[in-house]
């Protein structure tokens, strides 16, 4: 019997080695898998490469992981925020490498990895600093930049509901990067609010099919929801 449920966030992340590349879902706090990130901080793996849209907010989650000096490199589109002080400090101290990627290129590079695509040409960033040194090509009447996939060892994401096969649904804008990250990692670990019986999710509304998911942990919702 397939059962991807794991007892705790700690158990779900126990095998992450130093130097791993980890995709972390979320756009700001929406969709950020807070319990899994806390477990990653406790787990102790160092020298990590992190893929996320941002570089942490305030003192929790990804910001705390950076504050704990566990991140060697980050790939993101928007590190600078009013409350990104942990990243800002590490960046100015030269302790963290930043690969800045336009948001759509970041999404497509993740998607490409999950879909087995070796690279793609995008019009985004052509003629800008972020395309310097990259191969370009004119196709039809437009200029494009060659971009390569981003593969990860682990993806840690948050979903709303799961069944034991790993079929997932999400909640509102918390979906963001999670479905594509789930496809791009060797091991996708999901924090969910609710586990349902097989068949409890209408097959027509499954967003991430279970084939992309390895481990599921149930975590009580802590974020504020509208009444």
């Amino acid at each position: 019997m397939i059962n991807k449920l794991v007892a705790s966030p700690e158990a779900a992340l126990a095998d992450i080695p130093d130097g791993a590349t980890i995709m972390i879902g979320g756009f700001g706090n929406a969709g950020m898998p807070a319990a899994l990130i806390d477990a990653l901080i406790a787990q102790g793996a160092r020298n990590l490469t992190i893929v996320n849209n941002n570089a942490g907010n305030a003192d929790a989650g990804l910001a705390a992981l950076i504050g704990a000096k566990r991140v060697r490199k980050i790939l993101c589109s928007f590190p600078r925020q009013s409350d990104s002080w942990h990243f800002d400090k590490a960046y100015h101290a030269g302790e963290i490498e930043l690969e800045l990627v336009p948001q759509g290129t970041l999404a497509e590079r993740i998607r490409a990895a999950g879909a087995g695509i070796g690279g793609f040409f995008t019009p985004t960033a052509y003629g800008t600093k972020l395309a310097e040194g990259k191969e370009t090509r004119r196709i039809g009447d437009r200029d494009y930049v060659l971009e390569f996939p981003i593969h990860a060892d682990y993806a840690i994401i948050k979903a709303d509901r799961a069944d034991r096969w790993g079929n997932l649904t999400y909640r509102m804008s918390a979906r963001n990067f999670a479905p594509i990250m789930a496809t791009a990692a060797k091991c996708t670990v999901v924090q969910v609010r609710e586990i349902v019986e097989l068949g409890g999710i209408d097959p027509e509304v499954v967003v991430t099919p279970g084939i992309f998911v390895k481990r599921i942990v149930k975590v009580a919702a802590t974020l504020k929801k509208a009444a």
Partner: protein
Amino acid sequence: MKKLDRNQMAARVARDIPEGAYVNLGIGLPTLVADFLPKGREIILHSENGVLGLGPKPAPGQEDDDMMNAGKEPVTLLTGGSFFHHADSFAMIRGRHLDYAVLGAFQVAVNGDLANWHTGGADAIPAVGGAMDLAVGAKKVLVMMEHLTKKGESKLVERCTYPLTGARCVNRIYTDLAVIDVKPDGLHVVETVEGLSFEELQRLSGVPLKRLATAA
């Protein structure tokens, strides 16, 4: 001359967004446009983080941490709205499905080059977000900015001195002084604020302006 304030600029942009348009409003000044969209028009707002059909701010106490716009401010969803993942969201942008992107700017060049993501300072942390995708992807790119910097320098320039967001991508510029179209032969003034002559706007702008033959 009567300079437009931020709300008046937003109202001026909103007036030009037609019924049925799919629109992305950038973070900051462009976000204000949402408050001035004409009530009678169905206009669908897109957000990079996977939302079509953004609604107004929630009532106090009704905020939901899973329901944010690209500026990470709490928002609501209109009836008929939808959610999707980031790759689909940027397929909408890059794939030329969005009718308008309204973006802020540091500088716009006479050829339509846009600079709005980075001051280029050695100590500045660069952050680009979805700006480069919007600049190349939207069918029309509208820029909304103050005409002059705080030091009184024109933000309309021959060549951008700040790093580019996109090359030759701007279609129309809305400032607190004028509305200006970017055309292959340069900048055409569509309108100026009350009490500002074309000649005075030309003097302040520092780059060649043309009078639009027929006002839009």
